[in-house]
Structures are given as C-alpha cells and as structure tokens.
C-alpha cells in the first residue's frame, strides 16, 4: 500500500519559490537577520527539479532535508503500526511503539519547522512489503529503520558546517539509538548493540548508502546530488 504523509509532493512552481528562499530560513534559524537577504526570482537552469521528486538542496539545508526525509519515513511507519489493530505486539511493546511514533513525529515536525520554506514536501511511502498484522514483520522493518537512521546520522554529522545543527542532530541520534536498541531487544533479547565493529563503533553510512537502503520504502524520487560529501 502507499499513502501520502504530511503534504503532497511539491509542485515545481512551488519548489522554485521554496528553493529561492532556502538561505533565508537557514539564517533565521541561526538567529541572523533575514533582512540582509534578497530573494532570487529565477531558478537555476542547471539544477532541474523532477516533477515528481524532491531535491534535498545543498549545504546544511540539504543535510537537514536529508534528516527530515528519514524522519518522515520513520514517523509514517510508526503511525501505520499504531493504526494496526492486530500487531501481535505485547502490551509493553505496544506502549513503546506508541512512544516511538510520537518521538518520530516530533522529530519530523521539528525539522519541518527548522527548514521552513526550504523543507522538502511530504514523501510518498510504500510499506507494501511490511505485514502490519505480523509482529516479526513489524519488528524487522522497525530494526531496519532505526539502525539505518542511527548510521545515517552518524555519517551525516561531518557534512554539517553549523555547530548548532550538529548539536541538534546529536540530540536526536542518541534517541534513535535508544529506539534501535529497544527494537533489537524485542527481536532478539541481548542484541541491542549487535551493530558494533571490532573497535566498538556503530556504523556510519553516507547518504547514498542510506537512500539506497530505504529506497524500497519510498516512492518519491529523492535527489541528493547537492549534498556535501565531506
């Protein structure tokens, strides 16, 4: 099945104005005056926007949109889980999933607010591969989303220039790691940190690998070509 979350994908005309205002909201969020900015009126012809996709953008805005996309996906998943009446989850597990849903929706909405008009539109998700009446199917998908989310944040930190944004991402990633550990312990008790390498480090993945991992769950094409690489 598929469903639209947040809002429909942005139309190209809307995106042009959004894209042009990108810096303004960045600066506003950083506490700088927006008055120094003039808004461009033309879209860069070298940077075509797919009609049915989203472009994450460049710089810190792009990285925040990348995180926003991941949070959209997680939030949509947990909303769907909490709507299912026959998950097979225990009472305590159900309570935890309800917490996870709220945490992820709050993360999603915070990024949306921080990005302002630079925020990408709502992604169209595809959860047809998940059986929401099966505890194991739900837990398996949840583990994928949480472990991937942790690795994504771990890999994205170095892409940021602003220490404020880095601090914000840091506040979120450890909660994602707590989620991941809790889900893993539901899947297999004691597997909470089964992700570590020989140095005791959690994975860190670049956006390209993360977007490939979540591609089966996202219908909307995501253009990440503008993201920083270091």
């Amino acid at each position: 099945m598929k469903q639209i979350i947040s809002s429909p994908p942005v139309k190209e005309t809307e995106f042009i104005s959004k894209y042009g205002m990108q810096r303004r909201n960045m600066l506003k969020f950083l506490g700088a005056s927006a008055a120094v900015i003039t808004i461009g009126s033309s879209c860069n012809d070298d940077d075509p926007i797919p009609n049915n996709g989203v472009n994450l953008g460049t710089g810190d805005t792009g990285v925040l949109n990348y995180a926003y996309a991941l949070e959209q996906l997680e939030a949509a998943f947990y909303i769907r889980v909490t709507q299912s009446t026959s998950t097979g989850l225990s009472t305590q597990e159900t309570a935890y999933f309800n917490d996870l849903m709220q945490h992820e929706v709050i993360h999603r909405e915070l990024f949306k607010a921080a990005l302002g008009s630079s925020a990408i539109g709502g992604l169209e998700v595809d959860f047809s591969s998940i059986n929401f009446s099966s505890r194991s199917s739900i837990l398996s998908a949840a583990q994928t989303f949480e472990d991937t989310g942790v690795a994504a944040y771990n890999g994205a930190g170095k892409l940021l220039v602003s220490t404020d944004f880095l601090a914000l991402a840091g506040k979120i990633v450890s909660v994602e790691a707590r989620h991941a550990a809790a889900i893993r312990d539901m899947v297999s008790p004691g597997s909470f940190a089964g992700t570590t390498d020989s140095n005791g480090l959690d994975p860190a993945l670049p956006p390209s690998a993360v977007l490939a991992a979540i591609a089966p769950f996202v219908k909307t094409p995501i253009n990440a070509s503008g993201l920083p690489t270091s």
Partner: protein
Amino acid sequence: MNLQNIINEIETVDPEVYEKLDTRRSAMKSFANMGSKIALAALPLALGGMFKKAYAQTPADVLDVLQFALTLEYLEAEFYNRTNAAPGLTTTLTGAARTAYQKIAADENAHVTFLRNTITAAGGVPIAKPTFDFTGGGGSGTGPLSGINSVFVNYVVNLAVAQTFEDTGVRAYKGQAPRLINNNDALQAALQIHSVEARHAAHIRTMRRAYAEANGGNANAAIPAGVTLKPWITLNQSGIADPFAAFVQGSYNGEELTTQAGVQTTSIGGQTYSAATASESFDEPLTKAQVTTIITPFLG
C-alpha cells in the same frame, strides 16, 4: 567584495589556507551560482561559516576531547571489568544479564583501545588509566556506594550505576561533538561511540525494568514508586530511588527540555504532546565541566 583577495590575504599569514578550505571546495564553487539568489551582503555570513569550520578548532582541542573521552571509557571499562569479575555478583549477575554485561564490557574496552590508538596517531600521548573509587567517595573508599551498597556486591545498585554511567556518557559525547566539527574523522568516530553508549543505556534501562517486574516491583530494583522506566529518558527522572537519587541527579538535570531550536516541542505540527514525551524525544548534552563534576567522586 572580492573573495579571492580575502583568501589571498589569509594565505600570506597561513600558507595552508587552501588546504584547510579544501573540504569546503564544493561550497566555494557554489558561490558562483548563488549570486542570483542571495545578496552580496549575505556572503560574509556564509563565508564565516566556512572559515569557522576550517579554523575554529585546533588540533589541541581535538586531542583534549579525545583524552576526555578516554577518561570516560577507562571509567566504564574498569566498572564492567571489575563487575564481571566480582565474586559478590556471581549469584545475581547471571544468564542473559551477564551476557549483556560481557558485551558492554567488550565495547567499552574496545573504545579504550580505539581512543588510545587514535590519540597516538594524532600525535598525542594517551593519558594513563586513573585510579577509580567505585564507592563514589573520591578516593576515600567510603563513599555512598560502600558496604552493602557496593556495586560489586549489590546487583541492584550496580545496575543503577551502570545506567548512570551510560546515560552520562551519551550526554558527554554529545556535548563534545561540536568541538570536533573541524575534524571529520574524529567527529565521526565520536558519533559512532556516542550511539553505542546510547544502545548500552537503553539496554541497562530495559534490564532494570525487567528486574523490577521479576522481583516484586520497583521497590526491589531501586526504582522510585510510580516510575515507568523506559529505554529513553523521561523529563529529568533518573529512575533511581533514594538513597541514591540525589547522588545521580546531576546526570539527569537538563534532560527535561521541551524547547528545541527555538521551537516548543509540546505543541508542534498542530499536535500537542506531554512534556514527558517531548523530553524523551531528545537527549541533551552535558558540558565537560558538568561531566567532570559527575565523575569526580569516582576518581581516586
């Protein structure tokens, strides 16, 4: 304004300016295309961010963070190593719980080795392992965690202290990450440890909750009455009861935040959330000074 002139000027005092800016080369290029979108007046601010990343942190800062992290990892590794070897815990720390402690110990010891190697590779000398006092007595050996409350005798107290160390570790790394923003390798490694500490914290919390449920409730697990202990931190609740509550509270103060990036998280996106839920959604950093205050009682 001539950007090239500015950089040329810097080059006269710092020949490595191009190297330092190298990672921001793509950002430099993008300036050429930004003219139609932002006014020149905005450029100094954007440029400032670029130079901030290139110059804000010195190698000394990075080494200081790594040494500080090593201190925390020594503390955690020693705690789990001695716990796993403690004769007083052989009948209480068993089965899945012991397996979990062995896993956590392996991670913490790996962090110690990794940080020592990283510090050496960065041209520093790793600090020696401090002497620890796990009674929390600052070297006296007679702190609040002594006698029947010794972590190496009392499993319930051990779990509470493990939780405090892990939650503190998460907050400590979080507080230091911005100091590493100029060093991609160090930053990423710190983040990769940070999330592992959070996984540990979540599991210890799960263990404490399970212990309470299997052993007659919160009162027998040093969890305050009425508290539902979760893998995530609710408000500024430690989930640790008296007589240890005050001793660990410094590790939880500030976690109750419900404003993030200037946005009220109890009322966001057209929905309202409890302060408990909003606070759970974000972990908060601790400064180096705050962490030092917290761990000082455990240093001999």
